[in-house]
């Protein structure tokens, strides 16, 4: 291995400079000056990611008033607060499932395309512009005088404008618009990772398109789809700007991030805000673990078709 060769080349030189054997011993475990280069980044992430998280966890058990569980008891006894979990799941789960399901046939089709790069470039634009801009755009586009309603009325599909913004529909549409490209690009990278010769072999043996998908592509794809579902779900679960701007932030799109924001920046209760953030993280973790547990029911194995 290169590491071993590298180490052998280095070890005598370093021990000549500094005759303490502990350096050699550490070097044999691949700990030397180069390894230490990782330390600043580790300290940074520990200090500004891990520490705040633990600090928030501890803070959430130190409420302004009451015993250490007061924040959590308040959250789960006040429907105005605990309903936000349901409101968020009601948006995030369907949006994620729709995005993942639609991305499969589209990705299967796109991988055979020659100029894939153009399509992927177009799809990266909504991800890059972000949810705030999409919210502003959809307010114009989906509004009662927007182009979508006008087009539908022109063709006589509807007689009065549909109410598509400042409600559940608006947030859902924005989650699909901003979430689908991300989900799709992940699915595409998983599908292109499946060796095409496996499907060719099946086709040679007489399997039709549906049978090939059912018995070859899908089993190989399930692992990737589970990871994709998790990554997409945590993105949609943390919906904030579009829920405020496009939804009804006091009504049926009062998602959990709005509750956390209000606790932190309107009531200045950092302890309660931390508690809500921890509950948010916990619900995400629970859904992710369920999804990952679900995938172990399926086939696990190589997606390549190499010999041996």
């Amino acid at each position, binding site marked *: 291995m290169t590491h071993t060769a*590298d180490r052998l080349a280095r070890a005598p030189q370093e021990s000549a400079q500094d005759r303490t054997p502990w350096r050699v011993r550490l070097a044999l475990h691949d700990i030397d000056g180069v390894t230490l280069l990782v330390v600043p980044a580790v300290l940074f992430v520990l200090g500004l990611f891990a520490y705040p998280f633990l600090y928030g966890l501890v803070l959430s058990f130190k409420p302004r008033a009451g015993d250490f569980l007061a924040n959590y008891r308040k959250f789960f006894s006040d429907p105005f607060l605990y309903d936000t979990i349901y409101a968020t799941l009601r948006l995030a789960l369907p949006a994620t499932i729709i995005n993942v399901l639609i991305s499969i046939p589209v990705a299967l089709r796109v991988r055979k395309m020659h100029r894939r790069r153009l399509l992927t470039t177009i799809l990266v634009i909504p991800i890059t512009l972000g949810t705030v801009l999409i919210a502003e755009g959809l307010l114009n586009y989906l509004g009662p005088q927007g182009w979508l309603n006008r087009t539908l009325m022109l063709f006589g599909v509807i007689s009065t404008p549909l109410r598509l913004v400042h409600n559940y529909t608006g947030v859902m549409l924005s989650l699909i618009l901003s979430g689908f490209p991300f989900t799709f690009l992940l699915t595409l990278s998983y599908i292109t990772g499946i060796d095409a010769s496996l499907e060719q072999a099946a086709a040679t043996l007489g399997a039709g398109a549906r049978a090939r998908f059912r018995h070859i592509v899908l089993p190989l794809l399930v692992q990737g789809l589970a990871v994709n579902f998790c990554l997409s779900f945590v993105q949609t679960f943390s919906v904030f700007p579009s829920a405020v701007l496009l939804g009804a932030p006091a009504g049926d799109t009062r998602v959990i991030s709005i509750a956390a924001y209000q606790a932190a920046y309107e009531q200045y209760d950092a302890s309660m805000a*931390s508690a809500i953030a921890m509950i948010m993280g916990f619900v995400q973790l629970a859904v992710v673990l369920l999804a990952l547990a679900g995938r172990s029911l399926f086939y696990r194995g190589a997606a390549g078709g190499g010999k041996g």
Partner: protein
Amino acid sequence: MGQDKTISERLWAAAIWAGVLFFIVNFMAMIATVVINSFGTRWLGTWLPAGFTTRWYRSAWDEFQLADVLTTTFQVVGAVVLLSALFGVPAAYSLARRNFPGKQLVILLFLLPLMIPPITFGIPLATVLYQLGAGGTIWGVIIANLVPTVPFVILVMIPFIEQVDPRIEAAARVFGAGTGRLFVYVLVPLLAPGILAALLLVLVRTIAMFELTFFTAGPDSQTLVVALYYAVYAAGVRAGQSIDAMAVVYMITTLFWLLIALRFVDPTQMVARAKQEAAR
């Protein structure tokens, strides 16, 4: 897999392409309404505005103090790009070249800030930053934005570094180069394309990063995307066209850098990196 043969397969393919087209057309139309509105004089109940003007850009520039906001945005983005390179590239080198005990744990530590959404860790992070006195300042915004970008640079750079032949480094060491000189004269020139790609992606992500900036910014440290959020939130106070003019400024800023970035990276890389690590 050959050509599609049966009629049902062709119909299926046509339906998929129609769906993709529908998505893209709607998205483009949405962008177009923003751009057209920003140039329109009055747009009520018609397909297009009554007339066209550029005065909304001047009024947006003054009303939203766009000069200040843009200056802040570029200061934040510049500092984030520079600092994430300084933290990230050496760490990536260490992870690419050494197999020290606990390496998997370190990689997991770097994966978490990328997989946990900013809203979830943003509130505890902002609380800590406010306690340290950095909340509400530009430094608070920079620090908060670095939390996901440092791990991002590390995970993007590891495969680039693994491609460099270690014998080149060994040769430099034989000739007496220390780690510092090795970086300046050997690694950085060899890794320039990778570093450039990673940093451009960091740049685009930071311009568009809403949540972390929103939680940590004070009135003087807002970036463009947060200023846009407040403008849309308080819609009705200002003219809609003015807000859309600002949205266009934001779009141009983002897409300009995105186009440059896309010359150096494959679009799928922008989302696929975290997943490749997660799948292990």
